[in-house]
């Protein structure tokens, strides 16, 4: 019984891998689906809308969060936005944008950016406002002005917290980009939501590729965070861990 189950599980995953690397006839007949070309194309589309949305969310949320944190104003707003963002159902957001605003790349980018703004805004506020007052005073004592303090002291010291928000936003966005096909944009979600065309092999193939993409994106952002974190913070952290 369990042997048969394992064999069945393995064969579905085998079919899924096969779907990624070899074209095959669609479940509905006539057309050919799967294979590296289609998977690459959908992956490209998926990444394109993900990066556009993440970029847009950064451009909007980072300056606002950093400014609020620098002046230590609007804590209630900055924290509430993050809390409220978690309550928004992704499926409803996509449906809402498709029904009220429209479909296509621009509208989906906007919808996904809305999803990415709360964690970036909240974390950049928290990160900057929690920077040690003594460090800020020292910077002012050295003759730095407002923007210099932000750029050379507050931002570098807030990198770990800000990047945690960026990573949360990126995960939310790349996950929800799979729903973009409901708003007229082809992404890897097409494979997952098109079971009657692509079959179980295509659905599981889509799930595998999306999961790998998400983990890769998360690891890349962790790498970027490591590069951006000031050496002093790393030393302090290593010392605390030891």
């Amino acid at each position, binding site marked *: 019984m369990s042997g048969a189950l394992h064999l*069945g599980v393995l064969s579905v995953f085998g079919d899924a891998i096969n779907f990624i690397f070899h074209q095959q006839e669609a479940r509905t007949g006539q057309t050919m689906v799967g294979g590296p070309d289609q998977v690459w194309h959908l992956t490209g589309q998926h990444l394109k809308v993900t990066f556009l949305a993440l970029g847009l969310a950064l451009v909007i949320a980072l300056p606002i969060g950093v400014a609020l944190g620098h002046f230590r104003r609007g804590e209630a707003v900055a924290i509430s936005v993050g809390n409220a963002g978690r309550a*928004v159902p992704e499926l409803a957001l996509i*449906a*809402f944008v498709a*029904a009220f605003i429209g479909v296509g790349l621009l509208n989906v980018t906007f919808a996904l950016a809305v999803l990415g703004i709360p964690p970036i805004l*909240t974390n950049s506020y928290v990160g900057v406002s929690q920077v040690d007052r003594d460090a800020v005073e020292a910077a002012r004592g050295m003759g730095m002005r407002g923007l210099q303090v932000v750029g050379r002291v507050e931002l570098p010291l807030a990198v770990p917290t800000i990047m945690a928000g960026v990573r949360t936003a990126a995960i939310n966005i790349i*996950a929800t980009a*799979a729903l973009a096909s409901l708003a007229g944009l082809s992404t890897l979600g097409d494979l*997952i939501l098109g079971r009657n065309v692509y079959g179980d092999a295509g659905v599981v193939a889509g799930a595998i590729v999306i999961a790998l993409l998400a983990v890769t994106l998360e690891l890349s952002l962790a790498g970027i965070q490591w590069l951006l974190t000031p050496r002093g913070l790393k030393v302090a952290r290593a010392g605390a861990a030891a």
Partner: protein
Amino acid sequence: MTAGAVQLAPLLGQVTIHSRTGANAPCQAQESKVFCFQWAVDNFDRYTTPFLNQLLLVLIAVGIGFAVAFAFAILSHRQRWLIPTFTGATGVLYTIPSLAFIFLLLPITGLGWETAIIVLSVYTLQIIYRNIVAGLSNVPVESQDAGRGMGMTDRQLLWRVELPLALPEIIAGLRIATVSTVAISTLMVFANVNTLGQPLYQQIDFKTNIVIAAGLSILMAIALDLLLLVSQRLLAPWRRPSMGARA
């Protein structure tokens, strides 16, 4: 021939008139109106089952997630090396998009409640675990010493001193986990569970439907969040709840 055409014309006229004046007909056109109140009143009962299903799914998933995270947090309270291991493992699982997670389980558990519960409870693990661990490590050494001075064993110290003092952090973690689980559970329509995602997905271009389904889901999240907030004030009245943790 001519007689038939003459008879048909008034009929067509009636049809048009009916579709414009019927009680919920204007909203069936599924366009133009932002929110059709009459349709909402007439059809509200179709959201009852999805709402209750979603609520049950959230309660089960957060319950299981809390039980597992709690057990591991207690274990790692004494075995500190478990903390990075468990945080790392749950972090990777948290990264997997829910839609992909559902269909990665398709060959193993199929589609249905079982799959939905696994996916949702796995997502709650990290935030609940991190907050319990943080809460336990923030307990003042003086409180621990006082407990030991009264002759408490490790277990008594944990249940009578450390866990009660960690309660605000623990509940803060539960609040975040619960609110996110409510939102993600709408996606469990793709695991064949009739949550509020079902009406959303079925009539994805019908504005009134989207507003009701999304509104009910957000209301559920707010209600559960408030319930946990109130329970924290009752259980740990010595400390005001913080506004919320970071993402």
